């Protein structure tokens, strides 16, 4: 069970998209996992053959527990060889984050001192990094012993395979097992159904593409001849526990726990500046006028790109604080998305600083849509390196955010408003935005933060360069 966000301690396996015997490539979506916040499509971190699925749909599994056994690319499972034989175990690697253990020097020293083999430790930090707590929790064994039981980390990728499986996991039809199958439904509909113990597969969806809407669920629940809500069985992910917290409650708890940790552990400092958007607005307007609606850019996309490039310029703000600061190798820009019905989730646009604007805009639209329909991918939720929150759409002029641990900075963008603006001794009316930065004082000082906001300002004065 990969960590799909800093606030995740366990997840419910909703469905498998592969079966034993299937060939999988690194990056294929193999399973859907439900967290407190959303259903997330989990990508495979190995190339090989699925040998055994260790976890049944509907099961709640802690982060770090193996979900499946995947034989390395070269090894074909032998017919009749029972899973768990020395052969199968030797060539098998539970789905994992990284090709090798990643740890800070401090953690390595700690592991050495305690006789812990880092290769056998599951990293729960961002990007699968091994934290101090992971080492302390690990069984102390002489170095060199491979993983035997429990969480294990794969060795570096073995034989390269460029062959593609005849049918990718994405092309498998949903398993015809009722609730385990893929039912399109709005988050609100899922919540109401889960609360009532109703199997969504029994609800006729009246929305686009047969999407089950809240009204459909309510109609079924109200109808006198409605099928009796199924009693929750372990097989039905829609009702995993006798009295589980509702989605809204779980979401509030998850947000609350993470923000509580943030405010307890992170010494925040805050900076604010007002950015003149006259040039950016003019440029956007001219550009959009010539384009069909689908290709138009919104100001938010331009500001996100500027924030990503500024974060690349000031690497002290782009990364993670675990037992020290680890800079991120690229800017995976988290975007806080408010969910309808409450709560928020901040998935990442990967490599945002390197994306051309139209591409970034397309990714942003796709990401927001999927965050709301509950179809995010593990790569998007596991390791954002800095997050932007744009409350401007909701009408506020400035937002001073709370940092998502283990990140070290959060950028806040307010509403674009027209204000009197003095420039070159002249007073005029210009569109402006208040950009703020909340940053971790353990990782940087105010002067570093100030460089970030000045970079953001400078970049937005030359929109054509973004």
């Amino acid at each position, binding site marked *: 069970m990969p960590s799909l966000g800093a606030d995740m301690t366990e997840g419910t396996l909703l469905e498998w998209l592969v079966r034993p015997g299937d060939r999988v490539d690194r990056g294929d979506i193999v399973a859907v996992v439900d967290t407190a916040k959303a259903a997330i499509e989990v990508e495979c971190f190995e190339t090989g053959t699925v040998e055994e699925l260790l976890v049944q749909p509907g099961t709640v599994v802690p982060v770090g527990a193996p979900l499946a056994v995947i034989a390395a690319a070269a090894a074909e499972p032998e017919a009749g060889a029972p899973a768990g034989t020395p052969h199968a175990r030797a060539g098998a690697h539970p789905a994992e984050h990284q090709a090798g253990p990643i740890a800070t020097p401090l953690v390595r020293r700690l592991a050495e001192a305690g006789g812990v083999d880092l290769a056998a430790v599951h990293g729960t930090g961002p990007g699968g990094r091994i934290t101090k707590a992971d080492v302390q929790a690990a069984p102390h064994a002489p170095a060199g012993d491979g993983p035997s039981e429990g969480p294990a980390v794969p060795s570096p990728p073995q034989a390269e395979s460029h062959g593609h499986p005849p049918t990718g996991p994405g092309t498998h039809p949903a398993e015809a097992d009722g609730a385990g199958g893929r039912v399109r439904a*709005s988050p*609100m*509909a899922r919540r109401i159904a889960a609360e009532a113990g109703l199997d969504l597969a029994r609800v006729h969806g009246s*929305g*686009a593409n047969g*999407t089950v*809407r*809240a*009204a459909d669920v309510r109609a079924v629940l109200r109808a006198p001849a409605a099928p009796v809500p199924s009693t929750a069985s372990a097989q039905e992910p829609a009702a995993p526990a006798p009295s589980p917290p509702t989605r809204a409650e779980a979401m509030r708890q998850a947000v609350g726990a993470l923000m509580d940790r943030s405010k307890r552990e992170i010494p925040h400092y805050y900076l604010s500046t007002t950015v003149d958007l006259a040039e950016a607005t003019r440029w956007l*307007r001219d550009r*959009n*006028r010539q384009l*069909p*609606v*689908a290709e*138009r850019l*919104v*100001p*938010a996309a331009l500001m996100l790109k500027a924030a990503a490039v500024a974060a690349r310029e000031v690497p002290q703000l782009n990364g993670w604080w675990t037992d020290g600061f680890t800079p991120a190798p690229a800017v995976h820009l988290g975007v806080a998305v*408010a969910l*309808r*019905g409450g709560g928020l989730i901040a998935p990442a646009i990967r490599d945002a600083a390197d994306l051309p604007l139209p591409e970034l805009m397309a990714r*942003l*639209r796709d990401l*927001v*849509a999927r965050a709301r329909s509950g179809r995010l991918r593990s790569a998007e939720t596991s390791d954002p390196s800095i997050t932007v929150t744009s409350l401007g*759409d*909701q*009408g506020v002029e400035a937002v001073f955010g709370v940092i998502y641990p283990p990140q070290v900075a959060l950028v806040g963008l307010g509403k674009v408003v027209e204000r009197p603006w003095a420039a070159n001794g002249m007073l005029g009316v210009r569109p402006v935005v208040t950009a703020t930065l909340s940053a971790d004082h353990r990782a940087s000082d105010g002067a570093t933060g100030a460089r970030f906001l000045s970079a953001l300002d400078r970049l937005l004065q030359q929109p054509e360069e973004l």
Partner: protein
Amino acid sequence: MNQDQAAELVKEVLLEIVPDADLTATDARVDLRQELELDSMDFLTLVERLSSRAGCRIDEDDYPRMATLAGSASLLAERT
């Protein structure tokens, strides 16, 4: 397209974007973005779908008129 047909189209698209919206309770003159908590991306999706299904051009200059259900409907009715 007359005003009623246009209003129906707007509602249809809004329900695709906000599946749980209760449009029967939505006043045709309230600001849609606030009422339905549409962000700029949602609004762009609305414009995009209305433009393609009604077969008319909608420019950024038209956005202020599209703030409400009634405004959007009358804009579409004029253009088609």
